């Protein structure tokens, strides 16, 4: 059973002609585009590489363990993955817009925290916001917010971002598995 799944995986990965096979490879490589775009979570290099790696693991996992699973279960999994992808992507973008700021045109974003430092808190009021304090601290978030709150926000953004890509990889792989199964069941024309 395992060898069937892995053989199928090898066959999909080594195929450079079929559209679904190319789409799967594209999906695995997609997070690496963020190395240039820098729209994803920070630090962008580890987040991009980790997202790509997690997607690759998900693809292998699906081929290894779900290739011969019940079709009804696979369809259910596909739907769940689609919902998870939408939710994680939405959450990730909301977190990025709320807790990060791009100080210049270099696309490098700074992640903010949610808890102000003791020595900054008395300075913050309606006329002097935390974002203004960030602008006045050479955009060093650790001078405005506590380190732990910055780490938690960074982790949340990264986890939701990676979860979005992982669920997308799951969705796409299950779709390919179902397509391949059907094409094998269909009688050959030749």
């Amino acid at each position: 059973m395992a060898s069937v799944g892995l053989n199928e995986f090898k066959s999909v990965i080594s195929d450079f002609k079929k559209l679904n096979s190319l789409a799967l490879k594209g999906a695995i490589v997609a997070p690496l585009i963020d190395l240039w775009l820098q729209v994803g979570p920070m630090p962008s290099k580890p987040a991009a590489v980790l997202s790509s790696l997690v997607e690759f693991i998900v693809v292998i996992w699906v081929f290894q363990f779900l290739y011969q699973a019940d079709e009804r279960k696979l369809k259910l999994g596909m739907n769940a993955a689609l919902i998870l992808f939408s939710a994680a992507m939405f959450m990730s973008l909301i977190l990025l817009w709320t807790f990060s700021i791009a100080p210049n045109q270099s696309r490098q974003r700074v992640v903010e925290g949610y808890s102000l430092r003791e020595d900054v808190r008395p300075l913050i009021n309606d006329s002097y916001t935390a974002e203004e304090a960030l602008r006045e601290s050479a955009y060093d978030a650790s001078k405005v917010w506590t380190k732990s709150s910055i780490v938690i926000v960074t982790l949340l953004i990264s986890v939701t971002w990676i979860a979005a890509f992982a669920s997308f990889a799951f969705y796409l792989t299950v779709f390919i598995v179902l397509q391949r199964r059907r094409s094998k069941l269909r009688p050959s024309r030749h």
Partner: protein
Amino acid sequence: MHISIWMRLAIHNRFLASCLLLFVVSLPSIHNATFSNSQKFPKSTALLYDSRHAQKAFSLENQSVQNALVQLSRTDAMDDRNLLGRTRFAVNKPSHSYSYDLDPTPTRYVLSGDDPYGKPLEALIRLESIRRDFESSVPNENFWRPRTVDIQSAIDNCIDRIDSSEFKFKPKYFQDECSKKIEAEFQNLDRSIQRYASVNKLKRIIVETRDAIAGYRIVVKTDPPKIQVHIMTLLQYKKYQYLNVPADKYQWNDLFDPENVMIGWYHYRVDWPKNLNGPEEGNVEITKPGVLTFTPKSN
């Protein structure tokens, strides 16, 4: 079973192999991106201090090495309040706050290259600076006196070892050993300062100089030239003002190099001479790369 599957995958699947290779190749850049720290001091400063020390060392050549180093360190601690002899400890009683900095200055700013006396001289200057600050801030407290004696003896031992005949056989080993012992004594002093602050309920003001993100390349000029410009982030300045820290206790970052990487709002001080209306302070926002020229205000 599972291992053999992975082995087969890795060997027979070129895509998997290239992905793993990509990940392994990316590791150094990931590590650099995550853990890299910006350089604190400009290179030109090293040259400045080398030439100065060379002149001083020449005039002190007849003295013992230990005495010469002590004399150099005292001169630096008193003369150079910007880098080597910068303020290391300050207490602001009205605001119940204090600040201290026991971090070593890179030895390349003290003596050139791998000079074995670089480390002890740097530690001596640090010790003299902190003694000076303790004497002026907390002269009647005793928490620091035994600690500074311990640091002094660690440095003296270090100089003795460098002077010994066995040093030339294992120079790296002795230098590392020296550094470890000296820094261990500075850590003891660190703990004593924190205990003193805790007993007296003092709040620490942390001064950070690290650059946060890539900023803009800014060329800083003064007209007339060769006037010292000091900056700090505007937030740091506002913190000082809120805590009523006296202006002479402010910790400034000195712009030694004309080229700097800056972004956001800064508070500056330009040391104009008296005939140009004396020192001037103000705020400046950096929003794009370019030249930042300071000119004295006219009467």
